[in-house]
């Protein structure tokens, strides 16, 4: 599944990110993402999270290799969920820069919407940053409303 132009535009906005994984017993766990990087192929996204704050995420990815990530634009609730298989890759310096930019943009955006900064601070940290590389197989609209749950994105040439 490939990100289309609409999705690429979406990823230029200030976003919040939430992540779900599941262990071998199908028990899900959840956490927040603090950054991302879209790869050139339009079918892969790196998602950054704190292993210190969300210690269950990395072991589950290593166990089952599956992940779901929802990005939301806080100002209008426009949301997309990406699902697929994931592997852990080493964290590099640019990942930390991406996380910094993501957290700053998200904090500013939420604050402009009336959420006090002291409330946001506990949610966003890149301490012990880890990167999960997600090969996108499904994209869903998750904006509340009639299109919720519909597929988005475009089938990539290789898969169609």
């Amino acid at each position, binding site marked *: 599944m490939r990100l289309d132009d609409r999705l690429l535009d979406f990823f230029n906005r200030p976003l919040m990110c*939430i*992540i*779900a*994984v*599941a262990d*071998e*017993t*199908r*028990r*899900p*766990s*959840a*956490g*927040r993402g603090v950054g991302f990087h879209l790869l050139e192929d339009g079918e892969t996204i790196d998602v950054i999270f704190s292993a*210190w*704050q*969300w210690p269950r995420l990395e072991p589950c990815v290593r166990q*089952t290799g*599956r*992940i*779901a*990530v*929802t990005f*939301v634009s806080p100002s209008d609730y426009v*949301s997309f*969920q990406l*699902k697929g298989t994931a592997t852990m890759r080493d964290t590099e310096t640019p990942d930390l820069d991406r996380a910094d930019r993501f957290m700053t943009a998200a904090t500013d955006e939420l604050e402009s*919407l*009336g*959420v*006090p900064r*002291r*409330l*946001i*601070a*506990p*949610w*966003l*940290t890149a*301490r012990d940053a880890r990167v999960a590389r997600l090969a996108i197989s499904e994209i*869903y609209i*998750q904006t509340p409303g009639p299109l*919720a*749950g519909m597929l988005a994105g475009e089938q990539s040439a290789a898969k169609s």
Partner: protein
Amino acid sequence: MNLRLSDLSACFEGVIPSIIATASADGMPNISYLSHVMRVDEEHVALSNQFFAKTAANVRANPKITLILVDGFTGDQFLLDIGFVRSVDGGALFDKIARQLKASSAQVGMSDVMRLRSADVFRVYGIEKVLSPVETAPAMATRPPVRLPALSEAIKVIEQQAEADEIIDSLLGGVQSVLGYGNALVLIRDNHRGCLITTGSIGYERSGLGSEVAGSEGLIGAATTSGQTIKVSDMSRVRRFGEAIGLEAEGAENTSRTVAFPQLPTAMSQIAVPMTAGGTVMGVLFIESAERLAFREEDEAALEILAGQAASALRASEREAAAAELRPAVRMPEPVVSGQEVRVVHHRFDDSVFVDGTYIVKGVAGALLRLMLEWHLSDGRSEFTNREMRLAAGPRMPEIKDNLETRLLLLRRRLEEKQARMRLVRAGRGRVRMEAEGPLILDATVGDYR
């Protein structure tokens, strides 16, 4: 430290969205935001079934679920391991969830969009506090708990009052002394006009006495029609209640015959507590605060106790006043009043009254003033019993049998507030005296539709 659901009360206010993670039968995870999580008891939470089809399907295929809840006060996050138990689409629990959903939907301006069809109940197996990179504020530590002796004292004070004004004032006094809230209103229901009328007020720049709220409007209307306490804990995303009418200047009263609803421009929390006696909602206690999440669960309970006591006292006061009016008001020799005429204009179509060109009140209170003036002009007396007013106005306004006292109170307070050259004073149980600074003139023809 073992966390309990009751420790997480600020997570259930609907201020910060919760997060739900599920997994399908084949183990593919799914994640979405969730607007409403409700605490059922110490071991169960309920989720309004508004969420997406995939989440709902996963919950049934694989009952293991993880939630992230966020304390709306401190920002602290909690991971909850929960398991699906059952769905409810009727009954007491469902009704409670539906009411909470309605109240918290109002926070994001979606109360019309969200209609609850069913709710899912989950058992909580574990609660874990998520590490925070910053020191968070101690949860709700800024205010001490409600002191029961103070509450008990406030209840006694309300109970000892016999007159409507004393009851309303002691209710507002109790709100201030027991809970420390500085901005509060008492609105009394007016079934005749299908609205609630501000009859008591503390803390506002303009008291707003006489201002009206439509019977179904906003938090106050919702509390009236549902008979349930309804609150908003974070106004930052909500259209200010009463915004439109609040902008009217006080000077506009004379042309609009509408008193502006009092405003606390910095309000972040609002609560509307129904004043119920004998199963009937008589009015609403409305409180605002500049604090986010100002109304904790225990504050809500204390306010409900105070409001219920005041409602019972008001009802008893009406009944006692009706029973105490055995001695009819007789014509007494009235001293001749000199001075400039006091001109009262009454418009029958809305029962609005103006004294010397200043708008005072409308509805039942306005009709009562006209009635007293007519008696004054025909019989020459200035003292009137509530009983004769009930008998005379009852056929046209049957509801006054239950709230004549509060209507007279509203009339009296508006005359005082507008510094009218006439006033009403109590002249013993169940009777009032009309006093004026000059001969009273009634002009009841202007704008009369009949």
